């Protein structure tokens, strides 16, 4: 029964090949557009997520504030108002994962005949956790290195390439300014940051070593920055509030006075970038879905024409014993076959299009099985939904009227 019905649907579609193919084209374009847009959108989202993951997630940065002396205001970090003990206190707050004090700077590094100017980050091991920055060979320095201000360093990929060339840096000794340092480990490559800076052109050393032996700070306990990571994204607003209160209290800032520090939410920018990509890909998907809808209406249109054209045939079939549901099924099957076949071709074209975009522009695309399944499901639904009305109309024809139809 079903096979016979399928055969008949095939024959009816084959009788008017051009029309069938044009009808199918609506579905092909609709599904192809949805698949293409979704893979580009998902690719963009993935790229943003990677950037965020590279930066580290749920991060705040506290910067030492400006001071004003006789009307001359220093810039941010002009006065080192933040201290290592501030960082320790913040680390105790609920919702805070780690708080890493940072003393950044730039210095010339030398190894054998090579030298290179790079950024030096003096910090604690917590910094690596906050930035989710793994050490890929050798090992990280520890809290005891920080306490005893040992001359050890972790080296980023770009700095390592420029200083050591093809040599394995682990265990080698190089100089920062005049002090010899031993490379404990190399850091995983992170690539560009949100601002386009090469994050791998860097050397990380213990905070105390940076302050005492490289940059020679006046106040040993003071730092320019503290990087704070919260346990979850949801905890960020609460932590922001409690952290501000804590610091105002610790710095004895009276009611109504400005903070002597700046608080930056590093993730917010990235989150908004992700959000805008998500909205964009949704929008693209929505626009593409409209073409799917138009394709469905095209199917309904042609099926209605087909029912009218074949009124007499329907009458004959009814006269020889077709039930209403036989007629309904016959026309519904045709609509479903057209939409599913169109969907399949559209799927292939969409994937091909996404791969072409990827090959030509290098844009990241993600072809997920779920979007294929969704497109297929939508196509079948569209076929049933838009095929049902014409099929129902056919099934409800009066046999005598249908037989007399010329």
């Amino acid at each position, binding site marked *: *029964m079903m*096979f*016979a*019905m399928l055969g*008949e649907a095939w*024959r*009816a579609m084959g*009788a008017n090949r051009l029309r069938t193919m044009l009808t199918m084209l609506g579905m092909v374009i609709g599904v192809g557009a949805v698949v293409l847009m979704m893979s580009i959108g998902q690719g963009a989202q993935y790229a943003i997520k990677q950037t965020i993951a590279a930066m580290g997630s749920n991060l705040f940065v506290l910067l030492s504030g400006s001071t004003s002396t006789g009307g001359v205001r220093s810039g941010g970090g002009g006065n080192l108002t933040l201290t290592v003990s501030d960082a320790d206190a913040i680390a105790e707050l609920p919702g805070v994962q780690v708080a890493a004090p940072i003393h950044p700077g730039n210095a010339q590094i030398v190894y054998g005949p090579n030298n290179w100017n790079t950024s030096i980050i003096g910090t604690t091991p917590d910094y690596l956790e906050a930035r989710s920055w793994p050490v890929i060979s050798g090992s990280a320095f520890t809290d005891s290195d920080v306490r005893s201000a040992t001359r050890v360093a972790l080296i980023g990929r770009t700095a390592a390439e420029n200083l050591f060339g093809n040599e394995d840096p682990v265990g080698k000794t190089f100089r920062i300014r005049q002090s010899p340092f031993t490379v404990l480990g190399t850091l995983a490559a992170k690539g560009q940051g949100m601002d386009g800076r090469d994050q791998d052109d860097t050397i990380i050393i213990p905070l105390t070593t940076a302050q005492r032996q490289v940059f020679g700070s006046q106040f040993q306990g003071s730092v320019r920055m503290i990087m704070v990571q919260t346990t979850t994204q949801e905890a960020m607003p609460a932590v922001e509030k409690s952290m501000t209160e804590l610091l105002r209290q610790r710095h004895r800032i009276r009611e109504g006075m400005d903070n002597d520090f700046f608080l930056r939410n590093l993730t917010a920018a990235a989150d908004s970038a992700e959000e805008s990509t998500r909205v964009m890909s949704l929008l693209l998907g929505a626009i593409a879905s409209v073409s799917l809808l138009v394709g469905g209406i095209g199917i309904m249109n042609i099926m209605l024409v087909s029912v009218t054209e074949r009124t*007499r*045939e329907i009458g*004959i*079939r*009814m*006269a*020889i*014993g*077709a*039930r*209403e*549901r*036989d007629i309904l099924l016959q026309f519904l099957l045709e609509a479903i076959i057209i939409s599913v076949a169109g969907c399949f071709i559209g799927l292939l074209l969409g994937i091909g299009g996404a791969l072409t975009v990827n090959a030509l522009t290098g844009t990241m695309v993600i072809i997920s099985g779920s979007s294929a399944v969704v497109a297929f499901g939508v196509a079948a639904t569209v076929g049933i939904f838009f095929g049902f009305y014409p099929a129902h109309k056919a099934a409800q024809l009066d*046999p*005598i*009227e249908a*037989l*007399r139809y010329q």
Partner: protein
Amino acid sequence: MAAEQYSVQAELGEASPKPAESIAPRPSASSWRTATISDAVIRIEGLHKLYETSAGLFPALKDVSLNIAAGEFVAIMGPSGSGKSTFMNLLGCLDKPSAGRYVLDGRDVEKLGKDELALLRNRTIGFVFQGFNLLPRMSLLENVALPLIYCGITSDERQQRAQALLSKVGLDGYAASMPNKISGGQQQRVAIARALINRPRLLLADEPTGNLDSQTSKEIMALFEGLNSEGITIVLVTHEPDIAQYAKRQVRFFDGRVVSDQITHQEAAV
């Protein structure tokens, strides 16, 4: 609306009314209901059919009562607009009466649902139309086998049975031909084969020779005679007296009523 369309069509179909029918014999008491046999395939009592038209209700059939027994060969005759086609549609379960009772093969048609009516058309009734009504995109074999699709018979059996019937109507080598490649007489043979595929008890033919020349008409009528001798009940609508001659009983309609009912071949009364 429907009736209006219908009556216009019927008038166009017959430009000059035949004088023979205007002097139709009056129904005689003796010939009325000659076929009241227990084994009736068709039992009709007080059948009325009204059509709604813009001018009001139009009665197409008025109080028609008729019994047809198994094995009969009945010709329904009458001028255009006499109600004979309406009567055939009711017989074929394509339409429902406005009033009255129709029992087909022991089943009261009024009480049947749409699906059960479709089943009757599929199993109990075979239709032969004036315009043949074959499906143009199907081969002759597929056309003949078509009714079997609606009763869940396997593809192999469908083909076997269709092939056997094509042989029976004398179209053995034509299984793969398309309907538009054969003559009208051959198309009507295919239509008859299709009507017979589900071994119906009743064969309904509406002007089956209306589109055929006289020689082909004779061949088709000979085919009907043969089928009748095998025991199939045949009801035939025609307005040609020489076609009606083949039937064993002639029922005349006029103005929505049965005006005569005669047995023309005595041996027909089984």
